[in-house]
């Protein structure tokens, strides 16, 4: 524990709490917009088809309908988008590639009129065979989901190879720590694993208000990456950046579902066609086919010497990105990295493929990659431990990398004490203590690349009214970014929290920030806030020195007052003639590849399995928030708890089910089962580890996603320890029950 500062290190209450609890907070669906039209989308009901005809005549007859917009209205544009691969038409253009693809939009004076009209549009589909299974889609000779060569999007890293096959992107990791790797006598485990497609379920689905004005595009969007949305819209609609303005109202959760661009292009396209502002509000069933988490199949092989020394790890991974790439290649890259595990291997050989199918597109979701692969790798470590008769914790401790060692060549060396973290978990799980039958403990360790980019800037301004305004483009999506940024500025400037205001993002005024994701808001954007605040502090002291005619080193700044000897004055006086501001950024953060720091994914769990029903209960969960420095300890704990609940859903019951024709079957919250309060583990222990070793402000590094990798794996480990081997998620009661039947019949004598 590091002692708390005046603001940093304290569990201050969120400044936006009252607005959210009282309903005063204005979300995208609440924004008052004069003359706004309501948009409803017609989505394809088939997974793969040629569109023979679209007849909007009946819809146009519906009173209140202003326009029906289709691909035909965008022929003057290159109306495709996608930040990584520019593969996605705004409206299906001749072909639909997944059930749920946008075919047409209705704009009407009322939501009701739009909803009524959209069902009357007649579309004739010539159905085509659909590729719904990622392995089939990746197989040699499979029909292609896209027949054109993939075009890199504006955010595709230079030099990335995009191929013509459905498996259009590969992330390979091949390295040898020792020459002539010797596997003789090694214990080998090899299996196939399956991970389901799941949905992020942010409480507020996507909302966009868009208008097409003579001087450009104006958008209010519930998005996580407003600056990348600006860039995408500028690219698609052929405008310079400064003629696209993106503002972000209160956002009701993201979890990755609102990262990059989602509903903005179609909303802008409709606004452009009708010449009036429009509002597009997704419902849950829309959001589920807008973006989701990749389903995955994987084959993994692990070889370990009889003395317990790790030799080699191989994995072949297929990520089902659906019909359009979205952020699939990044997810695939991180999945490949997660397959390695933070161990000292002699040899690593991983191939992770991003594969097109005729299912809805997949993108980012909290903890991606680690959520997919950590449980796979860790379950093989457990299996080896059992085969060798070595304790699971002990086997890990023997092979874990130390701080400073290379995890993946070319990437930032390991920057955390993983063994220490693991021991913290073991202690709280009473590791080694006896358990009754059908109970199990699990433990898991991993890391995931976080931070992604140092491109974050901030501006901090003292206003004449004495308040300090923080302009930073990291979005408050419930994680507490605004609170943390205010704390950082308050700490540096010696101010009470009530005098610091973090403003909502407006790309016309807010300094650039790449994105709200990869656990970067505190570490990267927070560093920009810290640097800007420090500059402002220097500027204020200099101004005060001049103002009072005293040397700077005789001044102190505390509680918003500058003092020298007996004299003191409020900093507001310094800004009487106008605001004083300073800029800062995070450019000092360097690091090759996506890891500006490694987010720690360490957790443990205890479970009990009911052998008669297959139901798994989770009495205890231990998560480690290895955050370097907890700027706000309460927010750190809430991050781990919230993520714990999402993991429980993903690990035990959530799964998007598609029909044989590729249509999503469970597109409501009654049928798609997110956890409820009854699923909260009886005991959730969050261990905050503060080693001051993060690259962010005050030694901080990000958190909030690591639990997805760590806890998913720990739960699998615990269920296995209870006697049920797991090779597929979710561990729903029916599956667990079948696995129990299999295991008992496999091991039955005779």
């Amino acid at each position, binding site marked *: 524990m590091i002692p708390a500062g005046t603001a940093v290190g304290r569990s201050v209450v969120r400044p936006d709490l009252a607005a959210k609890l009282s309903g005063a907070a204005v979300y995208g669906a609440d924004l008052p917009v004069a003359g706004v039209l309501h948009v409803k989308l017609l989505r394809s*009901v088939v997974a793969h088809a040629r569109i023979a005809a679209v007849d909007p005549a009946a819809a146009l007859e*519906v*009173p209140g309908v202003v326009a029906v917009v289709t691909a035909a209205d965008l022929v003057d544009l290159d109306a495709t988008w996608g930040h990584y691969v520019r593969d996605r038409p705004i409206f299906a253009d001749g072909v639909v590639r997944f059930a749920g693809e946008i075919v047409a939009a209705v704009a009407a004076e009322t939501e009701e*009129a739009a909803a*009524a*009209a959209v*069902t009357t549009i007649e579309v004739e589909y010539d159905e085509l065979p659909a590729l719904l299974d990622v392995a089939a889609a990746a197989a040699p000779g499979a029909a292609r989901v896209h027949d054109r060569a993939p075009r890199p999007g504006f955010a595709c890293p230079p030099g990335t190879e995009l191929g013509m096959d459905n498996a259009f992107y590969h992330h390979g990791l091949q390295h040898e720590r020792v020459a002539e790797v010797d596997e003789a006598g090694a214990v080998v485990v090899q299996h196939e694993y399956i991970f389901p497609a799941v949905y992020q379920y942010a409480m507020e689905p996507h909302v966009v208000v868009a208008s097409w004005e003579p001087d450009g595009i104006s958008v209010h969007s519930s998005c996580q990456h407003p600056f990348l949305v600006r860039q995408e819209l500028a690219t698609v609609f052929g405008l310079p950046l400064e003629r696209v303005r993106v503002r972000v109202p209160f956002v009701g959760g993201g979890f990755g579902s609102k990262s990059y661009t989602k509903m903005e292009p179609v909303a802008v396209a409709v606004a452009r066609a009708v010449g009036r502002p429009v509002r597009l509000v997704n419902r849950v069933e829309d959001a589920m086919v807008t973006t989701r988490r990749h389903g995955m199949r994987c084959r993994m092989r692990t070889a370990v010497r009889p003395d317990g020394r790790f030799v080699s790890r191989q994995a072949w991974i297929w990520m089902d990105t659906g019909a359009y790439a979205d952020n699939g290649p990044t997810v695939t890259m991180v999945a490949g990295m997660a397959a390695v595990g933070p161990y000292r291997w002699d040899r690593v050989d991983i191939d992770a493929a991003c594969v097109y199918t005729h299912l809805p597109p997949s993108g980012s979701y909290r903890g991606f990659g680690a959520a997919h692969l950590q449980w796979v790798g860790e379950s093989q470590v457990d299996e080896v431990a059992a085969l060798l008769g070595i304790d699971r914790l002990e086997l890990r401790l023997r092979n874990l990398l130390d701080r400073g060692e290379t995890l993946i060549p070319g990437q930032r060396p390991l920057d955390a004490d993983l063994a220490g973290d693991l021991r913290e978990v073991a202690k709280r799980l009473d590791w080694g203590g006896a358990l009754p039958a059908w109970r199990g403990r699990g433990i898991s360790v991993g890391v995931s690349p976080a931070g992604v980019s140092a491109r974050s800037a901030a501006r901090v301004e003292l206003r004449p009214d004495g308040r300090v305004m923080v302009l930073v483009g990291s979005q408050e999506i419930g994680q507490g970014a605004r609170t943390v940024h205010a704390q950082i500025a308050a700490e540096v400037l010696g101010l009470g929290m009530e005098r610091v205001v973090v403003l909502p993002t407006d790309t016309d005024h807010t300094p650039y920030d790449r994105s709200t994701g990869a656990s970067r808001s505190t570490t990267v954007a927070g560093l920009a806030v810290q640097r800007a605040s420090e500059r402002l502090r220097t500027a204020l002291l200099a101004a005060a020195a001049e103002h009072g005619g005293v040397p700077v080193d005789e001044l102190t700044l505390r509680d918003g007052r500058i003092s020298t000897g007996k004299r003191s004055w409020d900093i507001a006086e310094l800004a009487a003639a106008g605001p004083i501001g300073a800029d800062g950024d995070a450019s000092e953060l360097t690091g090759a590849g996506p890891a500006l720091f490694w987010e720690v994914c360490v957790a443990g769990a205890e479970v009990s399995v009911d052998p008669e029903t297959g139901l798994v209960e989770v009495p205890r969960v231990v998560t480690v928030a290895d955050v370097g420095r907890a700027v706000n300890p309460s927010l750190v704990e809430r991050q781990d708890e919230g993520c714990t609940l999402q993991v429980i859903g993903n690990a035990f*019951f959530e799964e998007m089910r598609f029909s044989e024709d590729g249509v999503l*079957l469970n597109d409501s919250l*009654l049928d798609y*089962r997110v956890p*409820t*309060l*009854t*699923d909260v583990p009886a005991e959730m222990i969050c261990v905050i580890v503060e080693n001051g070793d993060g690259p962010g402000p005050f030694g901080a590094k990000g958190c909030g996603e690591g639990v997805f990798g760590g806890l998913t794996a720990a739960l699998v480990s615990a269920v296995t320890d209870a006697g049920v081997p797991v090779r597929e998620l979710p561990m729903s*009661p029916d599956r667990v029950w079948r696995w129990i039947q299999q295991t008992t019949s496999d091991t039955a004598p005779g």
Partner: protein
Amino acid sequence: MRTLEYVRVGEPAQAVAELAADPAAAFLAGGTTQLDLMKIGTVTARRLVDITRLPLRDVTFDGGDLRVGALVTMERLAREPVVAQRLPVLRDALLAGASVQLRNAATIGGNLLQRTRCPYFRDVATACNKRDPGAGCAALEGVHRNHAILGTSPHCIATHPSDLAVALVALDAVVRLLGPDGPRTVPLTGFYLPPDDTPRLETVLRHGDLVTGVDIPLPAQGTRSGYLKVRDRASYDFALASAAVVADPGRTRVALGGVATVPWRARRAEAVLREAPEAFVAAAGAELADAEPRRDNGYKVELARRTLIRALSTWAAP
């Protein structure tokens, strides 16, 4: 565009008259089923007759009966002290249903008349004899893990989803009606119609019949009762199997939910228990002897059997 008329009535007779005058009109109570189904196109109504202002919101005693107005909400009834004390089976069944928000809007009358959750009934793009007589039943060969094993017909295997109705069937509740020809009463055990070859007809109600209330005979003092609901998820989910048990001194009444096309009074189990009050396993076995599972819902036979045995062991054991 679909147009919809809306009228609010103040007197039960007016409500009945409104419906009698218009075959395309329907009652609107809490709206949690009616509006839901209208939005997805499963049911259509040209005219909604809002009955929420009718004076049918009282819970009173009349002799040995608890008289519950049709517009009493689920949450309110569950919180009535007399229900907590004398009718735990009813309280449990109510609180095991839906969510607090829904229960604060949903009415007792509406609950009894809610429609099946069969996905093929709800999805207008698929075949359903209940929605569209003669169209066929997509559930027979489709996704039917949650469908019925009792009271099924070759034309429909949809379950009745209500928890409340299962408790009330076990309690021998009586439905009070007001129809175009005046008031009448129907025992709940005779209220629901099994699908047979007319799955569209779900109850004995005729168009225009208004449920005005439910009369529940209070079980004798000392009666133990309870409702056990088994589901995939511990809250906000419909039953895979459920059992209501009312163990009056000298006789045990039993009903099953989640497994049958109608709230299922378990007469065969009761007959076994009359002879041998503690023969729970035999009773459950008898009730499920003629169950007709299909490809994916065979587990319900065993699940219902065990649910019933556990419910009996909990509330009917001496």
